[in-house]
């Protein structure tokens, strides 16, 4: 049996190994997540140097090893230089990569691979001011592919359809354990029936933020748009307007992103480390509104 094989993959993580090698974590279409050594990749004249950078899509030739496979050849298909020019795009890209690392397995992952590449392309070319919206949509699509996307159109508990009424003081609930939006009546029922918090749920609440919260009509309207293949922005005002919702200030997108983040952390049962830098980037004055 041949010890070499080919794969198409995107580099998601790289760590120094030994004197000049690099240990790569690659999401491949054919074999899912794999770890391989890029020998000599940290040497200045290595042909694998640039190709072993993060977010580089390569056609790879790998050789099977006892414990780790070895990268023999790499031919770059795509890289995302635009991400490295803007801190918010770069951080958002790493956030999506971390989510993908949570979801990926060692089975063929062509869909996840294509989804990540598509969202990195969007982040790279997104108009300024829409990065957070692109990140929220990327998060939602990754959750959807994992089969754990939150329900946003019907109450998770009563199956009542939920249509946000913009321009009025309209509210709904969002329950992470229930799996998405709930009506206010169900929210009140949950709150009234809530017994003393047990240790486990208390711990999860502490780690993943509020498990049950209220959301307004604009937030739900934005959340309901995320399932679409693409978000259509119009630049009618200084803020990106979204079909049916109007100009959504960044503070609203931050709340939407935070909801999805808490939801993803709950379902993947691990904190998203990149989130801290996302908060720091989008809390800066340029994004405050």
């Amino acid at each position, binding site marked *: 049996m041949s010890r070499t094989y080919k794969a198409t993959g995107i580099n998601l*993580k*790289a760590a120094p190994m*030994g*004197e000049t090698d690099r240990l790569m974590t690659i999401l491949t279409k054919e074999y899912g997540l794999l770890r391989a050594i890029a020998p000599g990749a940290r040497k*200045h*004249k290595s*042909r*694998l*140097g*640039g*190709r072993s*950078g*993060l*977010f*580089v899509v390569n056609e790879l030739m790998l050789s099977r090893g006892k414990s780790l496979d070895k990268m023999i050849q*790499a031919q*770059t298909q795509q*890289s995302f*230089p635009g991400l*490295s020019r*803007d*801190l918010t795009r*770069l*951080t958002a*890209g*790493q*956030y999506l*990569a*971390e989510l993908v*690392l949570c979801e990926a397995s060692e089975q063929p992952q062509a869909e996840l691979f294509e989804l990540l590449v598509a969202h990195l392309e969007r982040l790279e070319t997104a108009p300024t001011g829409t990065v957070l919206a692109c990140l929220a949509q990327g998060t939602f699509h990754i959750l959807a592919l994992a089969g754990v996307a939150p329900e946003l159109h019907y109450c998770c508990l009563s199956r009542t359809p939920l249509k946000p009424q913009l321009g009025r003081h309209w509210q709904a609930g969002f329950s992470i354990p229930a799996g998405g939006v709930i009506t206010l009546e169900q929210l009140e029922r949950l709150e009234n029936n809530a017994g003393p918090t047990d240790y486990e749920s208390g711990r999860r609440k502490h780690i993943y933020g509020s498990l049950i919260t209220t959301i307004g009509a604009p937030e739900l309207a934005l959340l309901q748009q995320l399932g679409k293949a693409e978000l259509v922005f119009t630049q009618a005002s200084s803020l990106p307007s979204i079909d049916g919702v109007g100009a959504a200030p960044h503070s609203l997108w931050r709340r939407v992103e935070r909801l999805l983040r808490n939801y993803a952390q709950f379902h993947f049962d691990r904190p998203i*480390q*990149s989130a*801290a*830098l*996302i908060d*720091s980037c989008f809390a*800066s004055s340029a994004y405050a509104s």
Partner: protein
Amino acid sequence: MGPKTAQRLALHVLKRPETEVRALAQALVDAKQQVGQCSICFHLSADPVCDICRSKRRENQTICVVADSRDVIAIERTREFKGKYHVLGGLISPMDGIGPEQLNIGQLVHRVNKDDITEVILAISPSIEGDTTTLYVGQLIKPFTKVTRIAFGLPMGGDLEYADEVTLVRALEGRQALS
């Protein structure tokens, strides 16, 4: 260090006279006890303030920001840079949970704000973590002074034909007008 190199060193130590081995052991203990960080630039130093920060022959107005003390040693080998340094102590790596607050970034901002600094050169390796750190630090320091970053691209002696696509893209992006 690989197992073969480790074995070679261990056998070499066993062959040397006991006085030499004791001296080596004492030197290692002394290094551990005496070498710390410079209170200004965070480079390795046996004194509270390192030789570079103390030097009167170096320019006080230029700071070269590096990730690690090894980078200071590498740049010093060039004998071209006459300014001072600031060692961040690592790179921002959001996916590994390493944030700006774990590095010496606050101290750099304080230093730039306090002293009369005319240029900050960011000499950080071109990687996703390196770019994240460069952009983050640049964003913080820009209001106070001129911020530049070192050029990236083809290594000296390297053939264009053999350069990888990612390096070539960087080299094209960083092109300069002929003077």
